[in-house]
């Protein structure tokens, strides 16, 4: 009889059954995943980005495969706040796992409106703010690359979140990720989520045009994992650990070894993204693998792993 491993994690005040979540944009509204696994076995799900008005998304091609990764430019296609609340919230209530809703927008007012409405929903454990979107009012510059804008948006959203923790998802496409992380924490972020995809391009050499209709897309998959692990460790050391803020880490995780790497680097919980496309129940296998790792290493509580890089 093996000793029971405690897989629970206190993430910004939310008790998760285990530290493995499915990442935003890779598990739909979580309802699509239920045909492939018992979602209740997850630590939680992060829904795709919800915007105030419905969004059709970009023309196709929206994805292209690369060596050890893929680019996507979906364009935040989603059914909008109103339909999300009426159609998807009731489904999410039956999942039996923690639900984090990813929030996106084009103006600070959009973010505030979506966050304020979702904060009233009991089933929503917390909000994940996607600040990698272009800011329409400021000529399309991304909210997430400018510390001043980050403070402004988080300050405004935090006021309407009530008791729901606000997780800020950082873009890695910046010169100094600690500067943007620090801005987020100072403005009231309860947790950091990292990393979003890396801006990238694939060119069709026959036509000399980008393959994606959007020209550029976000690179995800195993190709970005070592960079993501480095960035998580850097932000953990420089910002998150001193501030006592947890990190939701991810980027190219395919197996339990990858997930444990992120936790050692400083993540309190991890997200599984692209790997779910290939094997829909990858996250459950990863939970098993983490349990085995803890048993092998004599770790009684998985939370002890976070930030143990020597």
């Amino acid at each position, binding site marked *: 009889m093996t000793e029971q491993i405690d897989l629970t994690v206190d993430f910004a005040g939310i008790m998760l059954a285990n530290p493995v979540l499915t990442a935003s944009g890779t598990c739909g509204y979580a309802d*699509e995943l239920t045909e492939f696994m018992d979602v209740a076995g997850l630590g939680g799900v992060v829904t795709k980005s919800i915007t105030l008005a419905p969004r059709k998304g*970009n023309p196709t091609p929206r994805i292209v495969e690369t060596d050890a990764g893929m680019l996507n430019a979906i364009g935040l296609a989603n059914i909008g706040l109103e339909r999300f609340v009426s159609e998807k919230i009731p489904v999410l209530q039956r999942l*039996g796992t923690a639900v984090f809703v990813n929030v996106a927008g084009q103006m600070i007012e959009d973010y505030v409106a979506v966050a304020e409405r979702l904060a009233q929903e009991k089933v929503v454990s917390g909000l994940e703010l996607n600040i990698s979107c272009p800011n329409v009012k400021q000529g399309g510059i991304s909210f997430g690359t400018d510390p001043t804008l980050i403070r402004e948006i988080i300050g405004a959203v935090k006021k309407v979140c009530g008791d729901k923790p606000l997780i800020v998802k950082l873009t890695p496409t910046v010169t100094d990720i600690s500067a943007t992380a620090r801005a987020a924490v100072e403005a009231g972020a309860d947790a950091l989520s990292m990393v979003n995809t890396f801006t990238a391009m694939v060119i069709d050499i026959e036509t000399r045009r980008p393959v994606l209709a959007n020209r550029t897309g976000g690179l995800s998959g195993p190709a970005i994992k070592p960079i993501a692990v480095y960035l998580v460790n850097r932000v953990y050391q420089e910002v998150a650990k001193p501030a006592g803020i947890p990190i939701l880490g991810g980027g190219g995780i395919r197996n339990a070894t990858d997930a444990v790497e992120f936790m050692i680097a400083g993540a309190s919980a991890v997200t599984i993204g692209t790997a*779910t*496309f290939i094997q829909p129940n990858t996250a459950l296998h990863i939970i098993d693998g983490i349990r085995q790792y803890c048993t092998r290493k004599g770790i009684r509580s998985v939370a002890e792993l976070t930030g143990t890089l020597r």
Partner: protein
Amino acid sequence: MENGVAVRHKGVFTAEVLSNQQIRECYYRLNLVLDPIGSRFFEHVVPGQFLEIDLSGLSLPPERHIPAELRDIAARQVLLRRPFSFSDVVTTPTQDGPCVKLEIVYCVLGPATLRMMTLKSGDVLSLIGPLGNGFKIFQTLKLAVLIAGGMGAPPLLHLGGYLRRHFPAVETICFAGARSCEDLPFTLKIGNLTGLVVDEFDTLGVASQVATDDGSAGFKGFVTDCVRHWLENHTIKPEETMIFACGPEPMLAGAARLAADFGLACQVSMERMMACGIGLCQSCAIEVNKGKADETEYKLCCKDGPVFDSRNVIFQVQP
């Protein structure tokens, strides 16, 4: 759905390779037998549905077997699963439930299908399926006009066999087109009355005609022009006729226009790059009319399709 667990219509299964044979040029025929649980899910598959195969673990064929045009990119890694339709599905009842055998016709055109060449009897593959919605057969159907373009042929071969088995009263004719004779995934032969026919359809008892853009076999010109010619010379009842088309998008747009010109209903099987095939990634968007004038929306090729009513689709390329 109850307690977070859905009624399952699809899943991740394994299939064992029975055979993997080269048909001609770049075309291969892969025969698989599904595991017992998978067989139950695939028992009622209809033509036009598809599956996703994980090919990431396969190794490259020896260099001498790699086509010259693929050598430069052969070593590129395969990460995502690849979608395939079926050219035939056969269910055999056994004591332990159904046993389903799938036939897939594929074309070697990239790093993933290049690796498929190495599959041999006894190999085991992971697949997700059955996926999407197939062709719909209406009770009023008396004449089925199949239009196959190049690699779009396999699901129509499945449809041809399916109609013979389940709707024997439906008259079926297939028009198979390609740029050139060697781009046809079929064996051609001289028919009794009509000139060149496709052997695979002939075997099923389905009439067929061949068209090539360059005239290297059959009708010279686009396959849709060949069908137009045929429709002009036959008396057809629109309410009893349906066009079923699968092929490159310009050909599907051509089939849609043809159907509109003759007042016929038409189902097109669309194709998009997809990362997952199960509605998660949202990458395989197809623009469709919303019902209201000038309003469109995106549907997903994997979940809402791949078969669509041609009147609803906004084609990205014109015929």
